[in-house]
């Protein structure tokens, strides 16, 4: 059977996210409880989490989480890593035995800093250098897959129900200021751990529910800017879209939201001239970056969390606030199970983003 990247696998899902805007860290137990409640929305073929703020002792270093199919590919990749990065620390990611989790690959973690002078190109920043190295490993080292590469954050994922994956990685022992989670319902899958979600690139992480119909238009758009969609998944292309818009094109997040879930033309016509000009420009320049079809996504980055629905709201999403925390989930019960009495709970409109950012510097 072909794995992700060799063909496109449609899938439906459950998502959940929590952020403490003051940056206070809390255990992964809550997010596991939330995503576990939506068990019906996954089918045991993929689950995962992204956690921000978990490695404060290494906050200046890139944390690579890597799946290896064999020791020999591990040796090769480590050889590559040694050439391109200073490795401060390396080791197994601790896991515990869980009955439903089988066939796990070797799972390793490295804290590294790039040897940027290794780059042949002159103008290149650390992020760009690191992202190119990650893309290179994933493309060229068969049997190795870097599934997390940000700073002070990490992704934990695998084949199984998300609550089992959470237990497997013992996420209740980690503390983060922001957690996102994903339970996957792929229509067919080879059971490849790398194909589970969240998808991450540097500090970006995306969890997503729905199958987008604009995939190939979006893919061919981002590929014009040097990206390569090797996994052929919606989350991958959505991550690259945001990386392009926000990191490379330096677009404010609220404008990037207008790109991927743009207002309808007739709504634009009712705006004032200035707004009209802005929105028309966005639709003209980024027409191919509109994400179409049903989706609800939670985008994580070090600054915080952005949750968004498609513009006609074909996937459900509920948001809540209590104190310093913002919650987002596919179903309201998944919030209520961990937040008994929210100050506010509501269903965001289609195309209307929930932007919950840290109010302080990343701790």
């Amino acid at each position, binding site marked *: 059977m072909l794995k992700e990247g060799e063909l*496109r696998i*449609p*899938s*439906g899902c459950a998502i959940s996210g929590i952020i403490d805007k003051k940056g206070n860290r809390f255990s992964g137990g809550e997010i596991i409880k939330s995503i576990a409640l939506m068990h019906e929305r996954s089918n045991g073929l993929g689950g995962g989490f992204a956690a921000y703020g978990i490695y404060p002792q290494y906050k200046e270093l890139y944390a690579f989480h890597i799946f290896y199919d064999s020791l020999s590919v591990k040796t090769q990749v480590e050889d590559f890593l040694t050439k391109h990065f200073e490795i401060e620390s390396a080791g197994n990611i601790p896991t515990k035995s869980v009955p439903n989790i089988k066939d796990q690959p070797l799972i390793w973690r490295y804290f590294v800093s790039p040897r940027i002078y290794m780059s042949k190109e002159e103008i290149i920043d650390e992020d760009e250098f690191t992202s190119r190295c990650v893309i290179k490993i994933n493309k060229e080292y068969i049997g190795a897959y870097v599934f997390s590469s940000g700073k002070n954050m990490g992704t934990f994922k695998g084949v199984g129900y998300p609550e089992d994956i959470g237990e497997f990685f013992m996420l209740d022992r980690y503390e983060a200021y922001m957690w996102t989670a994903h339970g996957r319902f792929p*229509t067919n899958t080879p059971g490849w751990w790398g194909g589970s979600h969240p998808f991450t690139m540097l500090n970006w992480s995306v969890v997503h529910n*729905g*199958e*987008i*119909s*604009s*995939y*190939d*238009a*979006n893919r*061919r*758009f981002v*590929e*014009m*800017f*040097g990206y390569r969609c090797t996994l052929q998944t919606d989350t991958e292309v959505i991550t690259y879209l945001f990386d392009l818009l926000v990191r*490379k*094109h*330096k*677009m*404010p997040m*609220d*404008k990037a939201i207008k790109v991927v879930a*743009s207002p*309808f*033309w*007739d709504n634009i016509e009712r705006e004032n001239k200035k707004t009209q*000009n*802005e929105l*028309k*420009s*966005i*639709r*003209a*320049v*980024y*027409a*191919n970056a*509109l*994400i*179409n*079809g*049903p989706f609800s996504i939670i985008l994580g980055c070090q600054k915080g969390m952005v949750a968004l629905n498609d*513009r*006609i709201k*074909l996937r459900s999403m509920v948001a809540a606030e209590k104190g310093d925390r913002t919650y987002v989930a596919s179903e309201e019960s998944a919030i209520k199970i961990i937040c008994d009495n929210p100050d506010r709970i509501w269903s965001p409109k289609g195309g209307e983003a929930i932007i919950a950012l840290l109010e302080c510097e990343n701790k």
Partner: protein
Amino acid sequence: MNLKFDSPLFEVIRDEKKCIKCKTCVLECSNKVHSYDEKKDIFKADDMKCVNCHRCVALCPTKALIIKKYPLEFRENAVWTESAIKEIFKQSQSGGVLLSSMGNPNPSPIYWDKMLLNASQVTNPSIDPLREPIETKVMIGRKPEKLEFASNGKLITKMPPQVTLNVPVMFAAMSYGAISPNAHEALARAAEELGICYNTGEGGLNKDFYKYRKNTVVQVASGRFGVHKEYLNAGVAIEIKIGQGAKPGIGGHLPGRKVCEDVSTTRMIPVGSDAISPALHHDIYSIEDLRQLIYSLKEVTHYEKPVFVKIAAVHNAAAISSGALRAGADAIVVDGFRGGTGAAPTRVRDNVGIPIELALASIDQRLREEGIRNQGSLLISGSIRNSADIVKAIALGADAVCIGTAALIALGCHMCRTCVTGKCNWGIATQDLELVKRLEPDVMYKRLVNLVSAWNHEIQEMLGGMGMNAVDSLRGNRLMLRGIDLNQKELEILGIKYAGE
């Protein structure tokens, strides 16, 4: 003795029982096929003159007329076919270059028919086009690589001018001269009502038409007929015509007999004088010269209008398109080898250029590889027959399409392919005032509106089926296409998978 070998193409058959002798057929036929002998009280038909335009058939109140293929047969021969023989007859008799009207009629592969579309089932929902919004509006023009915003969120980037089309369709360039003023008026009015554009063609523009400026693309071709500052500012965009799919590398020739008073005024040439468009622009011998022309047009219109460059789909169309885009063209219009024409040398029409589907796929891919596809628009034309062709064209990578032949058929053209004679019985490809007035713009423009509106509904149905509520998400979305009856190379060029993959 001057022997003539030619035989009729068609046979006119009259059902005497049905005929009420109203003589409509006699009055209507500009080719003088029908005649009435008063003394004998009989109708005669000169089959030699019949072009099978269906005018008499359509207007006959009792449907007493039938036109059939003339039953005379040559001895069967797969090499020396009837048309091969007849063409030699014509040329040996006249010594002339064969001239044809309308697009290439030969059975070459139509790739539109070899591509099939996708639809949503379960994993994502289709969208109901009757009740949910499905957007087909597109913006044609140059786009900056990215938008820049100030720290207060204000947009800094100034957008280059765009042409907005409510439907991803434009009426293709057809000059006043080649087609009648009434046909032009119908196109202009329909474009206005539909929120799209028509194209003046290279024949200049009558001032009466300036009122349609918001829906007009003015063309500049090698003859520069009627090109002046006011004309250039009389539309929302300017199209430089380098080539035409039906006759790449060939100029145009409007015979003096078609240059009536009115045509003379708009083209700014004397009445009765031939209007010759050179095969090339004599100020463009290279790509940097194209840049010079593009910018002279931008200068004289104060950078307020996008400049399109129209080329024929030839072997290296991809490189040419890239060059044109880099030279400052805001949109590339590519016309395929099945594209229509008022008149083109038959051999050129049928043998020069490549199918638009392959040209489009390779141009879009090349521009993407160079990272510049998003910087300009890509329009295509050349026998777009229906809304499915449009949907497939957009999925391959086009922003919009231009329709010429389809628009003329909506106006009454019956594809008799004798535009060169100037005797169009339907009032389309003629300047004969008696014939021109048969086409009533007030009535006929509505047929164009109907056609494009119906196609728009169909595009929305197909988009909705694919789970998209904006045509933006279809552009270049080749995963929505699958091939049938195509070889590996064709699939590779089209950038699509085979059905079942």
